């Protein structure tokens, strides 16, 4: 984990924010950087973030986990059921257990029996999808508010809080002033947007969200600073070398997959307990796969996954809270394309210059010509964004060297 790039990261974050600010002032569209949008984005990014971490744990130990979606589905169901019966915290626990079960199945198939990892994942997804339908048939049908495709609603939710002082949170019963909100309301260039973003990130926080974000530093620390972490990563980089040094690759792959399953289950639990208050069929909506894309975009590093998930979360946040503002996003894209075009001219790379100029023109036209993007098309924004993100990220990727390749003990013959 490098410390030197910290200033660079801050600059990379500041530039888009400044651009958003310009867009806001020009178009008068407040929603793009408002606290509501950012708050929703944060909430919506957590399932993708934790799903991405699930993918990371699996691939770092050497096993592709396409089955994250299925494990999330198990998480949503077991979470929804557990929360309905026993309350939200127990529900989250059950969600994790549901995911671990999925992880165990995947581990047995791929690590013990060396089934192709992608096939195992795809079959697991099928199994989970239909399995929870059957379970719903057994358990939810006939209960008030429940049916074959949803669970009865939960009665209590996980508590939310505001961070004290800066966001009007409570400290020992005293309600503190709300500094960030004050700044946001002023609407000044850049400062106002920054305040809006920070306020969105710090108020109305759910503990479920906090735990989700905590998986990032926790995973980074475990995987890069501990003995088990190093050995687990070696199982993904060079299992044969690790085996010759006495590392138990098989056992570590099981561990990695169980953790992966647990994380995926938690992500599912967030969907049915925090983001809503009941289980519904199709709740995952492909987020397991988006999580994998996030992991790829993040170059298999926790901080990268955090960055990628923020992006997707933002796309989902805008779609949910500020869908009228989507057409304004075209302006942002146009502006970004112009900036990249300038960079390309400076670097003398003609193809990139032409492509970015092209994109800028189309985006500008789209902004001016399109009033309202039809709802049926905005539904596809996150999936479209995934493709765009993956398309741009291909060059400097460094996946774990042996991820995806089955390993048998003693195979160094």
């Amino acid at each position, binding site marked *: 984990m490098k410390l030197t790039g910290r200033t660079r990261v801050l600059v990379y974050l500041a530039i888009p924010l400044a651009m958003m600010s310009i867009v806001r002032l020009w178009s008068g569209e407040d929603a793009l950087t408002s606290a509501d949008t950012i708050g929703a984005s944060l909430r919506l990014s957590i399932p993708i973030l934790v799903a991405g971490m699930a993918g990371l744990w699996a691939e770092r130990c050497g096993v592709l986990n396409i089955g994250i979606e299925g494990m999330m589905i198990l998480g949503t169901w077991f979470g929804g059921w557990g929360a309905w019966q026993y309350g939200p915290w127990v529900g989250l626990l059950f969600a994790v257990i549901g995911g671990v079960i999925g992880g165990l199945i995947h581990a047995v198939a791929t690590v013990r029996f060396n089934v192709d990892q992608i096939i195992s994942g795809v079959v697991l997804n099928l199994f989970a999808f239909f399995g929870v339908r059957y379970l719903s048939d057994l358990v939810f049908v006939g209960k008030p508010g429940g049916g074959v495709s949803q669970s009865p609603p939960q009665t209590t939710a996980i508590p939310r809080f505001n961070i004290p002082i800066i966001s009007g949170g409570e400290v020992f019963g005293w309600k503190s002033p709300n500094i960030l909100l004050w700044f946001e309301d002023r609407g000044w260039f850049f400062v106002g947007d920054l305040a809006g973003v920070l306020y969105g990130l710090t108020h109305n926080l759910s503990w479920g969200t906090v735990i989700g974000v905590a998986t990032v530093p926790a995973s980074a620390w475990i995987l890069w*600073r*501990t*003995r*088990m972490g*190093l*050995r687990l*990563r*070696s199982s993904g*980089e*060079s299992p*044969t*070398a*690790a*085996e*010759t*040094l*006495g*590392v138990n690759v098989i056992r570590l792959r099981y561990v990695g997959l169980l953790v992966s399953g647990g994380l995926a289950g938690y992500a599912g639990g967030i969907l049915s307990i925090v983001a809503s208050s009941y289980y519904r069929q199709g709740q995952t909506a492909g987020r397991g796969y988006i999580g994998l894309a996030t992991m790829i975009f993040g170059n298999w590093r926790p901080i990268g996954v955090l960055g990628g998930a923020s992006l997707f979360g933002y796309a989902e946040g805008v779609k949910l809270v500020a869908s009228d503002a989507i057409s304004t996003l075209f302006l942002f894209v146009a502006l970004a394309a112009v900036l990249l075009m300038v960079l390309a001219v400076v670097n003398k790379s003609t193809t990139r210059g032409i492509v970015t100029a092209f994109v800028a023109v189309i985006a500008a036209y789209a902004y001016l010509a399109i009033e309202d993007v039809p709802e049926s098309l905005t539904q596809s924004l996150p999936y479209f964004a995934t493709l765009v993100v993956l398309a741009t990220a291909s060059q400097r990727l*460094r996946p*774990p*060297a042996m991820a995806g390749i089955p390993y048998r003990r*003693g195979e*160094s*013959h």
Partner: protein
Amino acid sequence: MPEAQVGVPAVELKDISKGFPGVIANRDISMSVERGTIHAIVGENGAGKSTLMKTLYGLHQPDSGTIAVNGDIVTFRSPSDAIAYGIGMVHQHFMLADNFTVLENIILGAEPGKRGVIDTREAAKRVNELARSLGVEIDVNSPVAELGVGQRQRVEILKVLYRGAKTLILDEPTSVLVPQEVHELFDNLRRLVAAGTTVLFISHKLDEVLAVSNRITVIRQGTTVGTVTPAEVTRRKLAEMMVGSDLPQPEPRATHVVDKVRLEVKNLTVKRLNGRDVVRDVSFSIRSSEILGIAGVEGNGQFELCSALLGREPSTGSVSIDGKDVSHASVRERMDSGIAYVPFDRQREGLMLSTSLWENNLLGQEEKYAKLGFIDVRAARNACREVIKRFGVLTPNEEVPAFALSGGNQQKLVVGRTMSMQPSVLLAAHPTRGIDVGAQAAVWEEIRNARDAGMAVLLVSADLEELLGLSDRVIVMFEGAVAAELSPRDATPELLGSYMTGAKVGA
């Protein structure tokens, strides 16, 4: 680790036998290794040396026989057990994680620290100390992917020493080194041995073995033939013990090089993404009935040169076959113009292991055996049978899947397939790698006969005997460029070695 006793051998093997499905690798092997000596184990490809060493290192258990370390009979259930007894192995094919740093590779499995957390500073301190004592300079935080071959070997040795190994096993350590690096390695080994370490050294390079070891055990066809000291034997006698007869060498034959140029390469350059050129401005030509040998340490552009000539990699410069410019032609087009390739890595570049031999033989020749768009199975099968017969591929029939063949026979099939295409220009990369001695001579004969009939050959080989015995001319590649051109008569290992390491730049 038990206390070392005077007079007790460091390692003693008695009647070790080990078999795998279909083959008996080791049979009743017995040998005794004295402490503080360099003990070599020699044998030809496939004799069973590697299997024996893997048994000693705990990667598998022997079917019968005993291993004694410092006088105590031991059973190694895994490498951890062997490591606990002070045995460390440096593999022929390095076992390093490219994306990890040097430090991470070395401490993996034996990380210093408390309660599960790694103490990075302590680890770095220890490793740096070890490197200093070995006389080696290395940056422990650099990713292994950036290291050269010699440095990687040093990392492997450090790995083993870090775990307190008192007995080192080195599996073919010099196969990737040039003569100067070999000298350095031997100096390191002598320093270790003087300090009390025991070294077991597997090789098939008899000159090196005679130069550095205290004792030599010869293994042939899975069993021990005898143990001698360098003083007792000559190279020839050693070769006889190893093969049962003298090692064949390709004898330089009178060549009749015809004036027609078959392959002309001008200013060939292959770029890599990070800007470095892996092949730099290479120019040469090969005439009809001529073999041009390319010497060089693996990784200096030979592989990329062949890829570019084949058309598999983009390049700048010009390539012509029989006068026809193919610089922008596809692989298919170049093959149609008469070029063929025996790949560096037969499994990765040449075979589909799970399919039958006849389908493997068909690869690249589908056009020849197709009627109206469909494969003529009978003709394809017959063609394969021809190759099997002509090149002596040991197999019950042509239906057998390629993975069921031994490495040497797989190589024979690949060479046979390429030769039966009757190319005008042959690119041959280590054509006899892994092939047992008897069949080596047969392959050399085939190449020579085709050469006499007019074929031009580009031969890349690390086996200097093969290279010097077959080639009419030799060029040396270093860092992607042609460093020198010599005639085989003038090329001694020392001279070649200096060109191969860039110590000297020649005409």
